[in-house]
Each structure stands twice: as C-alpha cells, then as structure tokens.
C-alpha cells in the first residue's frame, strides 16, 4: 500500500470548506483512499465526518493511504491539495 504523510496547509485546519474540497477531490479520484492522524486507525478519506473528527489544525500531519494501481499518482495529487491553503483560495 502506498502512503503519504502530509502537513495541513489550510490556515483554518482541515474542516468546513477545505475539508469539502478535499472530499470532492477524493471522490473524483474514484478509488478508495484512507486518512488518519499518524499512528491512528485509517478511515475513508471521502467521509466528511471522518475528516472533521480528526480535528486536524494548520500544521498538523495526516497520513493518506491507497492500494489502487494508480495509488502513487492519486496520493501525490491529494497531498499537494492538502498542503495548499485551501481556505485562502
């Protein structure tokens, strides 16, 4: 399984608008992706509730995982998205 550890770039943390944009991107990838805090239990990354429950603030690290054949590409795209300040855009 491919994984990436990403630092949240959004100034408000990962909820509300940034979380909604991220969920939309996961759905667009159309393959199962997981998300958790480092060392936590992975949950579905296309779940708004799972993401909000992480309580990830600006500067916190989160871990993405994917087992699809194109996992590296999918995770690179999603990681790049998380690193941006989605709220400012």
């Amino acid at each position, binding site marked *: 399984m491919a994984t990436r550890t990403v630092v949240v770039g959004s*100034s*408000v943390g990962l*909820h*509300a*608008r940034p979380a909604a944009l991220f969920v939309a991107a996961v759905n667009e990838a159309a393959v199962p992706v997981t998300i958790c805090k480092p060392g936590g239990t992975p*949950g*579905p990354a*296309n*779940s*708004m*509730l*799972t*993401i*909000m*429950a992480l*309580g990830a603030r600006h500067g916190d690290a989160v871990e993405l995982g994917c087992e699809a054949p194109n996992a590296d590409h999918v995770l690179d795209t999603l990681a790049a998205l998380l690193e941006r300040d989605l*709220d400012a855009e």
Partner: protein
Amino acid sequence: MAGLIQGIGVSAGSAYAPALIVAPPVRPPHDEPVVDGDTAAQRIRAAFDEVAAQIDQRAASASDNAAEILKATAMLARDPGLIDAAVAQAASCGPATAIDRATQAFVQQFEQLGGYFAERATDVRDVGDRAIAAVLGEPSPGVSAVTHECVLIAHDLAPAETATLDRQRVVGIVTQAGGRTSHTAILAAQMGIPAVVKAAGCLDISPGTPLLVDGEAGQVHIDPAGEQVERLRGRSARRAQALADSHGPGATKDGKSVALLVNIGGVEDAAAAGAVDAEGVGLFRTEFVFLNASQAPTVAEQDAIYRQVFAPFAGRRVVVRTLDAGADKPLAFANLGAEENPALGRRGLRLSALRPDLLDAQLEALSRAADATGADVRVMAPMVALAEEAAWFARRVRENGLKSVGVMIEVPGAALRSRFVLDEVDFASLGTNDLAQYTMAADRMQGELSDLLDPWQPALLDVVAAACDGAAKTGKPMGVCGEAGGDPLVALVLTGLGVSSLSMAPSKLALVRYALAHHTFAQCQHLAHLARSARTAQDAREAVLAAVAPAVAAVL
C-alpha cells in the same frame, strides 16, 4: 381524555387543531441479537439510505434557509465514514446498537473538539436516531412531514427543528420542557405561532386529540367544549378587529411617544420585519454572522451582510448589538474554553475586551454598511457591568465613525448605577431576559425556574425602575429590548417606569401599540405603582389587569 394543562404562554394567539406528537428518539433494544455480517451491513446501509431520502424529501418542500440545513443533514446520512463505522460495529452487536455506537463515537469526538464541531454533533445525533428508527422499522423521531393543520406536541424542539417548521400547517406548539425565554419560545413568537411551554403531561395526550391552545393564558384545553373554542375564537376576533386600526408610531393616549421596534436575528428576519409597521429595529442580534463561521468573518463579508439587514430600514433606526458570545455560544475562532458558569463568564463585551480585533472588524463593517444604506445605525454592547467598560466601548465605536453608541443593561450592577454608565454613552437598552436571570439568580435555560424569571417579579420591576431613574437624571433614553416589552400589560408598566422605546417580536407590536393608545402616561405611572406595590409576581399582574382600560382587558 378531556381537561386542562397549565403551562407558560410564550407566543400569543389561540389555535384549535388535532394533536401531532413529535416522536421521541427510539433506543436500540438492550438484548438486540447480532445479525450475520452481510445481512447486517445490508440493513444498516438501507437504513441510512432511507434516512437520506426522507430528509431530501423534506428539503424539497422547505424554504431556502431550511432546505440548506436539511441538505447538509442528508449528506451526513450518506457519509461513508459513519456508515462504514456502523457496519464494522455490527460484528459484535445488533444493527441498531451498531448505528448507535458509531454515531456516539463521532458525537463524542465532535463534542470534545468544541465550537463549530459541537454544533455538528447535534446533527450527527439526529441522523443516528433516525437511522436507528429506520433499521428497527419504527417511525422516525422528530417532526415528520406535516400533512394537515395540527398542534405540535414535543418534549422540546431543537432550534433547527423549529426553524424548519411548516408555518402553514403547524398552528400551535406545546412543549413539556423549555421556558419563558428558551429558543422555542422566541422562535415561535417570531413566527407568530401560538405556543405554550412547560406544559406538564402534554406528551400523554393521544395523537389526533383536538386541542385548544391559549397562547396568552398559557393553557392547553384537551378536547374542549364547542363553546370554549368559540369563546377563545371570539376573543381572537375582537382582537383582530381592535388591531386592524392599530398603526403608526407608538404613543400613549396623551401623546407621549414610546418608539415601537422589532427584534431581529438575521437577514431573513430583516427582510420580513422591514415590511412591518414599526419605527425600526430595537435589537439586531449579530451572533448569526459568527456562530457558524470557522474563522473570523472579514470586514468585507460582514459589511455585505449588514447592508442586507440595514437596507429595508433606510431612514429608520437599527440598534445593533455587537457580538454576544460566550462559553455557551462558543466561536470556532475565539474559543476561550469551557467555563463552569458561562452566563457569568467571559461573554459579551468581556469577550470583546479579550479579542478587540473581532470588535474592531465588526464596528468597521457596521460603519461602512451604515454609510452605504442610510439607516440610522446605533451600536450597543452586551453584558456591560461598569461605567469604565461603557467608556471603553464608546471610544472604540466613535473612533470607527459611528454616531450613536449605547449599552445593554442586563447586569443589575449596571442598572443600579445607570446614571454613571449612561454618562459615557448616548442611550441604554434593558435586556429584561438576562436582567431577570441575574436579578433572581435563576438560569434562563432551567425551565423549572421559570417562575423566578417572570417579568412581573416585583424585584425585577424595582431594578428596572432604578435603571430608569438613573437614566432620567442624564436625560438620555432608556429602552427595553427583552421579551417582556412585548407583553401589553408589562409594556404599560415599563412605560410608566419611564422607558422610552419597546422592542419585541414583530407579531407582538400591534397589541402593545393598542394598549398604549388606551392609557395616558399618568395612568401608566399608576399601573407601574400598582405593580411595584404588590407582594408577589401574580399579585402584580392581577392588580394591573384589574386596573387597565376595559377595551384592553377585553382583548387579552
């Protein structure tokens, strides 16, 4: 079952319709058996599907604002994280228990995160309760689709539930819990739906039983006799006739003006209230701008909202209360943490003093919107206790180019020293709900203490009288923006005490105007004297009721 339930009338008018009981949440059975994996997963997914479809259906027939709330809730019912968690739990327990555990896990995490998240917890719990009912094949909890005229009976209504009520069909509301100033009470009054709260035993009424709700007397008549319905209808008709001629600025019979204003809490309210025959807004609560925001709203964002609120009131006054948040209404971006006594903690102006950046942004936005719309914007601070605080606030407001600055009088300490507090500002407004809470040391949210919060409590009237006396020494106006001002009898007493404006839910204006027009200022002073001379709250109300003009007594 015939009979009478005495509660507290919180929204005037009478209603006669069959009872519709709002179902309480269904709990999973204690001995629910584990179901084999695939079947359990299927049933859980089907239950969430059903809930999402149900909510979508309600959203389709709801107004814009309500539809948005409902669509967001439907999305939660489709959330893969919630559904997967429930399916995973089902390995070790029955499907309903599994849904309950999965929901509770999210609820607990959200409550720990606080602020914005804690509010979402209520929505998650609601979705979970609905899914539990669906998987058990039980009727959904909460307000179901209302298909005919009814009197709604509930333990209590969540604000979101009240906001999404079908105003055409829900003709009355009766709740077992709640209090005089609970959110159900305030929203019902704003929507003009007769309501009685704290009606003990109302949940035992059988569905479909004809009910007569008397929003003035706070009574619920169960399966009433025809003549009783006629009597109340007669009163409602007399009232409608009396009020048909009630219009224009408020004044006593001898021409002492008492400005009649409305309380609003958002853009939708403002649009509706703009059309009401009122002299302006006496209380614009601005919390709505902040409470659902994940970060502090910018000056530009606030300016845009305030313009929409002010626009319907060009040429009229709009009294704006600056942000009134505290530990019980936490902000995602200014959360000071939990407090043991939120009502007595760092709230209102006290929060603004800790985060002056928030206050300054709000004042700048208000100033811009005032200039752009031509409304007579006046700004006041909540939770002021000291003259020093009033001075601090006044300086900031004036530095932002706003012309009129005032304070809320909610703290008894400020009421007793109103002369010195008012020296620093241009006006003051009595928040009678909080003033009652602090005078009687009785939590507004505690329904069982409602009697202590009765606006007729002579001690509260004494504190109001002291505040008005202090204001009179400065020659500056003292208004009222609490719910008490909307009761015609209390309004007469407040006028007699020297209050110069009354702000209330729009549905209460006409009756108050009518009552004022039938009494001279001297008569109001006499009524105030009678109320303050009484030993108990009940004696005070009865003494005043016995002394008012017959034309007013006939329509109460």
